[in-house]
């Protein structure tokens, strides 16, 4: 048991429990202070996880990259200036050769969890999202009526699930992490019990989520039956005579993960849940849950790169194309803000899948790097969008696009940040979203030129960008030059929208990050490059 591997997860769980306990003795007027406590504590956890990964020491468990066996390090030795490890196998028998240290991944819990740069990246991403969501939740607290403390605590627990998902290396941890996320979100989506829509969202998410979990656990069982191991690395070895069972298992597993990221045909829940759930929850669902699904998909796809399943890999092409097309076309006629972002979110899941498709075109590094970069830009754009939506809909109690009318006169800050976020989501320079889409499309184009990917996929992806410009620019139009729905109540006459300073802070952080990631992407690109080395792509 190497608890340092999961020290962040343990800390966050304790923070959640602490918030729950303090909630008992906090008077209702001061509940938001619990949120600030959570933010401060999570910020410390975030900082503790940064920096280079610790060196491997004797007694640690490691994976040799791309190998299913969990080895235990006995001692290290420097050969030709590089660290090499002497290891023993699980049976206790020493390994007959040394392994270069830079080819190993630190692992623990009998291969259940790895600590690599990829996990570190996604953990940082999830923590950042959770901190911003808590900031958003503090501004939202007045609309929750009761259970503010529980709201903050549940956010922490969902975060723990995402952190475990980031480091998962076998199917047991994968399933536990996904369930932790999903079950917490069942509660969070229906948190505004007095709103029928919120309850409806909770029930929809519950039923479909349970069905998806059932599919996934069945898939895991089939894969275990075919290969006899729970490790992701099992995907690297062909399943021999059980290929049919193995492929069916993979298919069911993909269905479960497809549900998490809202890929076609498992996307039906997204618009309803996005619309009904409280704004902070929708934001967390849109980025955190999607990131967790994507990292697992990425690990599985990278591990299963050698699988010669004739069906599975082309399936990714079609799923990506269908997801982009469905999301873009359905978003066209949406007037409800949160539904619009929901459908747009489906389309972005499709763009993320382009990165997975790229794995098979020989541009795996670029593709997975693009996924990581895109998610970082998406994080700040989505949080900023929901922050503004949450504030604007507070008085209006309506989520039609027309509530944005005159936003420019009512709050220049929110109008500017929402514009930046929308322009970034639309993928226009100089913001983060542009580079994200650029990086995702680049390897697919290169693959298409070599005949490795469908030209149809490229056409759908490019058409999707053009279509997305239409619906995103409708939002921009509403902000700046919409007459509003009521001709007697000109937008200029509407009262100024006050923004509390927690929201203001979060908005400014998001705006700065969107511009910085767009203009100076090199530091983050370097980090993503390091992170994807953990995937052992060739």
């Amino acid at each position, binding site marked *: 048991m190497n608890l340092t591997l999961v020290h962040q997860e343990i800390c966050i769980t304790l923070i959640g429990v602490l918030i729950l306990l303090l909630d008992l003795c906090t008077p209702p007027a001061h509940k938001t202070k619990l949120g600030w406590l959570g933010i401060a504590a999570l910020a410390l956890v975030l900082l503790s996880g940064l920096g280079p990964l610790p060196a491997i020491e004797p007694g640690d468990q490691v994976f040799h990259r791309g190998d299913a066996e969990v080895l235990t390090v006995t001692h290290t030795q420097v050969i030709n200036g590089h660290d090499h490890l002497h290891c023993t196998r699980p049976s206790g028998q020493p390994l007959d050769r040394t392994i270069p240290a830079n080819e190993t991944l630190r692992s623990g819990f009998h291969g259940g969890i790895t600590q690599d740069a990829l996990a570190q990246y996604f953990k940082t991403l999830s923590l950042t999202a959770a901190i911003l969501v808590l900031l958003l939740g503090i501004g939202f607290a007045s609309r929750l009526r009761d259970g503010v403390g529980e709201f903050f605590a549940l956010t922490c627990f969902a975060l723990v699930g995402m952190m475990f998902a980031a480091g998962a290396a076998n199917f047991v941890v994968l399933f536990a992490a996904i369930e932790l996320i999903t079950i917490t979100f069942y509660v969070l989506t229906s948190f505004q019990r007095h709103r029928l829509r919120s309850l409806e969202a909770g029930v929809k998410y519950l039923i479909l989520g349970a069905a998806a979990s059932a599919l996934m656990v069945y898939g895991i069982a089939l894969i275990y039956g075919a290969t006899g191991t729970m490790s992701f690395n099992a995907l690297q070895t062909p399943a021999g005579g059980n290929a049919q069972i193995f492929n069916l298992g993979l298919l069911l597993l993909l269905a479960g993960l497809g549900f998490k990221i809202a890929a076609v045909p498992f996307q039906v829940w997204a618009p309803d849940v996005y619309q009904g759930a409280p704004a902070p929850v929708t934001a967390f669902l849109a980025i955190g849950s999607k990131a967790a699904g994507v990292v697992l998909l990425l690990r599985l796809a990278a591990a299963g790169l050698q699988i010669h399943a004739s069906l599975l890999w082309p399936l990714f092409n079609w799923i990506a194309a269908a997801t982009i097309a469905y999301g873009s076309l359905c978003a066209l006629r949406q007037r409800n803000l949160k539904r619009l972002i929901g459908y747009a979110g489906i389309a972005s899941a499709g763009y993320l899948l382009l990165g997975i498709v790229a794995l098979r075109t020989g541009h795996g590094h670029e593709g997975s790097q693009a996924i990581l970069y895109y998610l970082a830009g998406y994080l700040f754009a989505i949080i900023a969008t929901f922050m503004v939506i949450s504030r604007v809909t507070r008085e209006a109690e309506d989520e039609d696009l027309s509530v944005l009318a005159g936003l420019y006169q009512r709050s220049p800050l929110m109008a500017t940040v929402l514009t930046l976020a929308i*322009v970034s989501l639309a993928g*226009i*320079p*100089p913001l983060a979203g*542009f580079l994200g889409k*650029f*990086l995702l*499309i*680049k390897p697919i*184009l*290169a693959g298409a*030129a070599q005949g490795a990917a469908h030209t149809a996929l*490229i056409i759908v992806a*490019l058409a999707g*960008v*053009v279509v997305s*410009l*239409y619906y995103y*620019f409708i939002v*921009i*139009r509403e902000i*700046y*030059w919409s007459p509003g729905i009521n001709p007697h109540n000109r937008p200029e006459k509407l009262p100024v929208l006050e923004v509390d300073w927690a929201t203001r802070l979060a908005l400014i952080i998001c705006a700065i990050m969107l511009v910085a990631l767009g203009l100076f*992407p*090199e530091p983050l*690109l*370097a980090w993503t*490059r390091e992170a994807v080395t953990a995937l052992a792509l060739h």
Partner: protein
Amino acid sequence: MSPLTLIFLIPLLTAIVLLFVPARMERAVRGMTQAATGISLLLALGVFTQFQPGQGYQFVEQHDWMPSLGIGYHVGVNGINIGLILMGALVAFAAACSTREIIQRVKEYHILLLLMTGGILGAFVSLDIFMMYFLHELALVPTFIMIGVWGHGEDKNFAAFKITLYLSAGALLALAGLILLYTQIGANSFDLLVLLDHASEHNPGLNIPMQNTIFGLLLFGLGILVSLWPFHTWAPLGYSAAPTAAAMMHAGVIKKFGLYVLLTVALPLLPDGATGWAWVLALLALGNLLWCGLVALKQKDFTLLLGNSSVAHMGFVFLGIASLNLIGITGAVLVMIAHGLLAGLAFGLAGWIRQHTGSTEMEKLGGLLQTMPFVGGALLMALMAGCGLPGFANFAGEIAVFFGVWQSDFKIIAVVAAWAALVIGAVYMLRAARNLLHGPLPAIELGGEDARCCARLPFVLLLIALLLFGLCPHLLTNKITPAAKTLLPPANRAVQSAHNQ
């Protein structure tokens, strides 16, 4: 630091500074915008006079930006973009002086105008393809918002969305082409000079089907940006709905970006693709010249007429590029510069007329030479330049394009184009002159104030430039010709030197 960096960074930084200027200080906002574009203009003029013709890229500055992606900060000028930068800076200054019509949200308008200016000037100085594209997109977005917020007419919303979708689709197709070019050449760099070196070392470079694919993507993607027939319908609509400065900048400067990329990236890197598509390009260019010319004939609104005639003029540039010989390409660049100046002038004057008479419909207007002698006189000169009257820069460019096309394989097109340009252009320009400038004053009093001292400055500058480059075209051609030589396909280059001997 290279002056080229300052040329585009000063407007961009001024835009950021303006964010923090209180919105009620409108005079300061206008003053800062004019100052920023004025400094850019002076710098561009300085670079233009210091430039040594025929010595490759000058005033070069290079930094790392995203080294892992092969993207760098790289600026420089050669004979092709030097004139475009001067023209762009001049039109931008004129546009910054033509914002009197804006009375609401003045600060935001000027911020967007500066973003547009900085973006497009940056795109013209870039030597990195990614940076070019990046800065051009930055210049496009303000266009949409400016039309939407400050635009004119009933269907400005439709115009704003149409122009957004058309231009984004075009830009995206072009981006797909550029990415494909990057991956196929395999130099692992978006730097234009690196790509050119790589292509000349690895001979033969790309195979012909691939070149045709990429050139096709670039031709249609960039073609949509330049309003190539039949993808031109956004242009007249958008320009008539746009506020004056946006129309001046877009019709004059931003639209030239597509042509510029076609010339400097597509021609030298994809010589076989260019040869393969030249016929198609020439035929589509005829569509611009004839079809859009005929459409311009039927217009009742002056801004729509200008929009259509500006689309028609793009036909000359496309023809010049399609000729694939030295004189044709030199002519194309000349027309680009001349048309930029002319479009800036014409849309600026049309904006003045709309602001002071409240209309641009030709049937309602008349006798403007009496009520506003200076604006009327300037407009007459602009219309004459549009006809291709000798003495204006347009004539020099168009005649060079004709020579170029005559030298190339499709002589018949030259004949048709000449006929189209002379007859149709003259008819609609002269008709506009008669309706607007001469004749009786309109029955209803329209009011109308002539431009006085300061307000004349932008128009005077643009006219001077048009006449200067018209009377002394060698100021431009001595810079363009050596650079244009390097753009030609190797086969045509050989023919060219044989001709010269």
